[in-house]
């Protein structure tokens, strides 16, 4: 199963993913300049949150225990057996938007113009999701779960390496969160 990994240390909050997701998945023109002129405003299925200090691109995490699937009244939300992605079968969606309330990440959106819900399907029909393709800093990456876990492991290892010297590596590390002035 593949997932879109977000490297927090690389995301600059440029919102390029938002622009091109809306263009590719929400517009008729399929180019940014055409999409920006369309009367029905194209919508992105990804959202960049955060501040100048930290930003993060949020899209459907395709949870292993997805509350939205349980919440869906008509069974329009279902897991694709092949890819493991949580997909919305638009024909079955009645636009009750219960799923938008249950999503723990807030990444399922109402789509009032079409009276259905809208969510990231990881660009299921494309080789690479458009947000991954356009990210200028490669903060978004399409990884197999095993690669994802390895990447997490590497980053955690680096963090530990940064915080303690070689003699302490492998031991339990306690972070003292109190500021020096409090001591």
């Amino acid at each position, binding site marked *: 199963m593949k997932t879109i990994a977000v490297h927090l240390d690389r995301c600059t909050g*440029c*919102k*390029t993913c*938002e*622009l*091109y997701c*809306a263009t590719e998945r*929400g517009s008729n*023109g399929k*180019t*940014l*300049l*055409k*999409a*920006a*002129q369309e009367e029905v*405003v*194209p*919508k*992105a299925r990804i*959202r960049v949150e955060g501040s100048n200090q930290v930003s993060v691109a949020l899209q459907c995490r395709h949870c292993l225990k997805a509350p939205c699937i349980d919440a869906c009244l008509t069974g329009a939300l279902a897991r694709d057996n092949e890819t493991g992605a949580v997909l919305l079968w638009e024909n079955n969606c009645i636009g009750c938007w219960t799923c938008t309330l249950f999503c723990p990440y807030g990444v399922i959106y109402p789509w009032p113009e079409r009276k259905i819900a809208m969510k990231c399907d990881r660009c299921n029909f494309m080789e690479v999701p458009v947000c991954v393709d*356009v990210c*200028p800093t490669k903060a978004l990456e399409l990884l197999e779960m095993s690669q994802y876990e390895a990447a997490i492991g590497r980053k955690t290892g680096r963090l530990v390496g940064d915080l303690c010297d070689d003699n302490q590596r492998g031991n339990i590390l306690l972070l003292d969160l109190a500021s020096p002035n409090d001591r």
Partner: protein
Amino acid sequence: METIHLKTPDPVSQHLLRSAAQQGIDLPWERYEKAQPQDGFMRLGLYCPLECLHGPCRIDPFSRGPTQGICGLGREQMVAATLLRLCQKGATQALAGAPHCNDANGLELSGALGNLIDKTLTATRQDDLSCSEIFEAAGLLQRSFCSQEKFLQKALRLGLLTLALVDQSSISAKVDTLECSTGYGVIPEAPVRVGFSGRPPQGLIDALEKGLLNGPAPSAALLSLGDWLRLDGRYMPIGVTSGEAELLLSSGAIHLLVAGPGTDPGVIALCKQMNVPVVMDYQTADPGDILKQARTRAAQSSYPDLFADVPAGLLTRVIMSPDSFSKTIVNDSVDQVALIGGADTPHLPLGSLAGDLFTALTGTNVKIAGWGDTALWMARRAQVDASVDQPLILENNQGPLLAIKGLAEAEKLHCLKGVCFAGMRDVLDLNIALGLAYIGFRVSIATPIPLHGSNVVNQTLSQLIVENGGELLHFDHPAEAGDLVSWFTAL
């Protein structure tokens, strides 16, 4: 290398591209691909130009994010202000070329172009033009509450000002035409080749030419990498267009580069990568030393003969004065003229639009005149296609203005079908395009300009131009020849 045909249709250039790829040299096309997608907010004009340092503010074109800047600037104003910022820079560039015009008092308008500008100002009940407009525009761009109409009107005035400044910066040509040899064919003519890019001082060029005449063997040649530089009584041979400068350098055919202001950083970096000496310090540069360095480098280097089968260099005549253009039009009994010009752009395969447009329009009995890289591409097309005549090539700095003045002199302005910018080198070209449209000509721009973030701004700009009898066509995609042929032939 599957996409090589998208970069250039020229067979010699494709050969050089393959060679560069084999050597692992990155060229502008690779950099362009790595830069994709370019900043979407800037491309749309939704990136705040007000340099208050509180931003940068951006407006979400799809209305989910911010709809105003921090200061409250709205979407329409932001797009219009983006255009004004570009025009302000274009006018500053034009002023740099005409420092004698830097007078806060009104500019004196004269000649055919001056009359056209004057007519527009009178028709729109506007004040006389002066260089202080550039500073006024800077004022408008400082946390201003102006309406989008005011921003656009100022941008159009700066377009007019640019026309006047470029017109006044033109050195009165003492000759009607100058010879210029172009194409890859000019490269193998000498064993030592000194390349020039940007705008190096004329004194250095003259001194080098003099040094060549009196210098020892082997003989060396001075060669421009896409810029229009003058030698004594002719143009320096132009080996390639500006978009191909790095391509030529990658072949190893250039033994020393004299880089003037305006040279792309990529050109300098590639010279360093290929150990080609670069001269940038003109004050201390000694012509004798430069030629000696070039000869030494030529003796050390060997490069595969990539230019064995190239067509011979093409000798063309460049029209240097409106008078000369006027005579040509009258003598040839031309009754339809199209002006196509501009610089190479990474948005389109090099030379494809120029060549296709040239061939298609020649078939409709329109006389084509061109300037810049586009003119070189059209000349190349005519060299290999016997069914089309050579285009008229205009002096590069004046470009369309020279032709318009010539047509006015011949009282044939009505013969002008339109002016097309197949590519833009910088904002100066944008200002000229806007200025020409505002004084009543049909103008098209083949590459997108950052106006598509607001339909309202697009419509208002068109309206302001149409009211004066002009037309500005621009696209939300890199234009194809078909788009422009139908536009040219629509009248």
